[in-house]
């Protein structure tokens, strides 16, 4: 927070924007905001790790410290969101410093509309993850340090504008998240952590390989995305790099057939970690696909589009069918969390402005909905003292608040109106019916199947007759309500006002609207697909 006060002390220039000045506008006139966002959690983690925590005596303080660090972060990001210039071309809050000149790597950070939406997602999810981690009792210091490091790596991926920097932060997140699984997972944590390291390691290796292929293919000049994305590559190389990037995305989102880690990890991880993994870390897979493949590999994207559509459809259908086979609510939540990834991929496969708008918005909305659903089911299992579907039934009466929050989260997975996923799914299906009609139709059927599976699950676990032999339900905690409330609240807020709340057509409070912010960048992104350059 001291950095904020310091920033606020600087004299500011009037905004060139035509929109009326809002609270927080023009606070950032210096170009180190993104570095502050990336490195302050790392600094906080180092400081926290220096303090002893004998017999967990100071656990509450460590928890509070991590919360306030991320709350301060959220506030800074919100100010950046308010200050974001919708119609200004190019990057904002840009920083560019040579890092490894010998190989052309540059410490290049910047935000466009897509990055802004992802930054908000990462910050929101980070805060919710800390709240959801209130149940962690052992080694709280270490837990919070790892969460802060993982958070920093995710912010780094979002704001990176150099492939080397992006790969660095991408891979740097694997170790803290894997150690969180290994240290705080349930009985099957070792197997889960091994699979996690293996799948995410494959993703990281594929990303490094893709970056180096691009580097070598472009004459070993550098990794800066400003250069890489504007260069012309042979279709063959584009296809190779694109395929590697699909593997990168598939291991994270996750997509069939790289979904193996999700079942094991989400079935054993604590709710806070599930929020972090599903809400933001996984969504970065789709983000990288949009940021690198769609933005720079136009021929490769066109060639791979039908394949991506098929992958999206398969993921949705697999998730819907696997739910019926699940034997416990945690595994079931893990399968449900796959659905938004499949829909996002369909939006990317369509490759037109509307569908890409929807794909970015679905990363935000789908991330929140999937995190709320998967972590919500884990919380249900914790409170009900059992995860088995044989035991759990009729819990709505015993945990009404949790039930309704979970219902909204599950509806968010399906893109129901008034929730943030609705405009996202609407744009995706509208766009994909134009360019990928077969896969759009198939994915629509898959979503219907998903709706049936969700209805079956909610009826069985929440709204059927209570099981008299089930263990007693533990009382809920405030933090459980808060973390789910924040996620579901964001889902509803963006769903009601995707373009920001307006009074007489004028934005009247802090939210300028997520859709216009995203739209500021997707138009440029989709332009090569709308107006293909004439052939030779």
């Amino acid at each position, binding site marked *: 927070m001291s950095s904020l006060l310091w920033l606020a002390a600087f004299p500011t220039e009037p905004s060139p924007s035509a929109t009326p000045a809002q609270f927080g506008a023009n606070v950032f006139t210096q170009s180190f905001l993104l570095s502050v966002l990336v490195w302050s959690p790392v600094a906080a983690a180092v400081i926290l*790790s220096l303090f002893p925590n004998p017999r967990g005596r100071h656990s509450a303080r460590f928890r509070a410290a991590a919360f306030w660090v991320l709350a301060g972060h959220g506030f800074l990001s919100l100010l950046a969101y308010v200050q974001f210039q919708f119609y200004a071309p190019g990057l904002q809050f840009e920083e560019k410093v040579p890092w490894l000149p010998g190989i052309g790597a540059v410490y290049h950070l910047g935000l466009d509309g897509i990055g802004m939406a992802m930054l908000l997602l990462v910050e929101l999810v980070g805060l919710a993850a800390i709240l959801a981690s209130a149940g962690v009792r052992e080694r709280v210091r270490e837990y919070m340090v790892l969460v802060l490091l993982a958070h920093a790596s995710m912010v780094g991926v979002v704001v990176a504008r150099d492939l080397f920097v992006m790969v660095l932060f991408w891979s740097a997140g694997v170790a803290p998240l894997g150690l969180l699984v290994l240290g705080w997972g349930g009985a099957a944590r070792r197997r889960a952590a*091994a699979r996690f*390291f293996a799948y995410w390691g494959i993703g990281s290796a594929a990303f490094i390989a893709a970056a180096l292929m691009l580097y*070598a293919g472009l004459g070993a000049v550098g990794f800066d995305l400003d250069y890489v994305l504007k260069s012309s590559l042979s279709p063959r190389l584009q296809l190779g790099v694109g395929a590697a990037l699909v593997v990168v995305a598939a291991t994270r989102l996750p997509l069939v057939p790289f979904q193996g880690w999700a079942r094991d990890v989400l079935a054993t991880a604590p709710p806070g970690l599930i929020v972090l993994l599903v809400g933001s870390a996984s969504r970065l897979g789709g983000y990288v696909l949009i940021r690198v493949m769609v933005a720079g590999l136009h021929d490769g994207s066109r060639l791979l589009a039908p394949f991506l559509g098929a992958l999206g459809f398969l993921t949705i259908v697999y998730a819907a069918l696997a739910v019926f086979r699940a034997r416990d609510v945690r595994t079931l939540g893990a399968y449900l969390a796959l659905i938004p990834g499949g829909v996002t991929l369909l939006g990317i496969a369509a490759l037109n402005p509307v569908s890409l708008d929807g794909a970015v918005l679905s990363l935000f909305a789908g991330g929140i909905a999937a995190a709320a659903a998967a972590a919500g089911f884990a919380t249900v299992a914790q409170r009900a003292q059992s995860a088995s579907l044989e035991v759990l039934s009729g819990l709505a009466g015993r945990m009404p608040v949790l039930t309704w929050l979970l219902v909204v989260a599950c509806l968010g997975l399906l893109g129901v109106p008034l929730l943030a996923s609705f405009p996202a799914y609407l744009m995706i299906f509208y766009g994909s019916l134009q360019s990928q009609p077969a896969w759009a139709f198939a994915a629509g059927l898959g979503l219907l199947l998903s709706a049936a599976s969700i209805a079956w699950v909610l009826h069985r676990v929440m709204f059927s007759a209570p099981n008299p032999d089930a263990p007693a339900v533990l009382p809920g905690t405030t933090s459980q309500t808060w973390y789910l409330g924040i996620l579901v609240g964001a889902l509803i807020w963006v769903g009601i006002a995707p373009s920001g709340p307006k009074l007489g057509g004028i934005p009247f409070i802090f939210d300028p609207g997520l859709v216009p912010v995203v739209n500021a960048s997707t138009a440029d992104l989709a332009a090569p697909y709308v107006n293909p350059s004439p052939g030779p």
Partner: protein
Amino acid sequence: MTAWVLLPEALVLAGAAWTVLAGAPRGSRRRVPTPGEDLDPRLPTLVTGLLLVALLLELWLGGSVGKLFGGGFVQDRFALLAKGAVLVALILAVAGAEWEEESSWLVLPMLLLAGLGGMVAASATSLLGLWAGFQLSATAAAVAVATRDREQGLRLLLGAGLSGSLLALGFGYLYAAAGVAGLTELGKALGGRITLPLAAASVVSLAGLALGLLPVLLLPQARQAYRNASPLGAAALGGLAAAAAAVALTKLGAALLGIEQGWVPFLAGVAALAMLVGAVGAFSASSPRSLIAGLTIAQAGWLAAGLAAHDRAGLAGAAYLLAAFVVAAVAAPVLAGPAEAGLNELRNLADRQPARAAGLGLALFSMAGVPPLAGFFGEFTVGVGLAAGHLAWLLAVGLLSGIICTVACGRALRLIFLEVVDEQPRRRHPLDFGSSAAALRFAAGLAAGFLIAAYGLFANPIHGLAVQGAAALGLR
């Protein structure tokens, strides 16, 4: 350039001689102590101070470029980088060692001599200088191992002799073929042709160096010796001797760049083998030392891969990785301690000795190539060389090795940091160390962790130095 530039080497040599003569002053100060006597507790602190002075002098005086002794000694950017890295590693080893665990004070002078060998090779301008530096380092490391396990040490000496002989044989052939022994003149004299004797000479020389770089891989006895060695013995063998071999290999590789690439497949094969064998060894490790051995071999494989890229980018990457490698490969066994009872001995280390745990954890992850640590930066720059040099298959092997090594490290990291269930209250203030040796160990752990974590932060100057070093070696 003046002869003052030799001061760092002179200080290291003086330190070795001094520790031999004054090593065990608990008894009489007027006689040379016998192995087995206790080390004077003040000696490690004094040697650390001496090495710090040597490092500062290297950074200050080493910036000048030139030759001494009629061209027999060279100080260039590559020498500065390599000698700086060796001195940093020596400081961490001497300061971080638990001297009570060492079976003999003799390990200290041997450690210094192993480091000196690397420094000599870094400043060598001829085949003879390379051979001398490498042989000194390998022999000193073997003796350091022998301080705990005499039989294994003797076998290791045999290995060092074998690799030295191969190297001498290869160098002899090269000299015979080219008519000159100077590294700069060698490539020109060979004239870009590759003949059968020349190919044989190159392969034999490289085999000798590879044997030195990867002793733990190529000799089962050496693997056993590494596991049984004292922490400093292991640091000398796996870190300093391997670094000396890597330095010699880099300089020889640069000299042979002018001729055809006949030996590249050989080196690429050795690199791939090392990466895979190291990764599998780390994955199946049941003790910290086995884990470190595996990781060391895997990263040595990356070093060889950088040389196999056969161009400036790859060699600059290898030089950049060399600094990260030598620091981590020396620090890891020292910080892990003897740990003879298996991986479980690391349990709860973070609570008992937090600085040591942090240093060890970061060193392990660095050797596995986990970002954003030193090893990742080095391996990525090597990867750039491989991609540019059309060795995609070797890059793929390296990435696979990295994944396996990361999984292998996860287990150790869990034991070190995440196995603390009942956190005991500290009996004394965290900064109350009890003794100066413990304070030194704390500082060494912190310094190792900081260097490994901040390597990327200083990537620009260090990699710049590596690129200039590659240019100084006359690479394309």
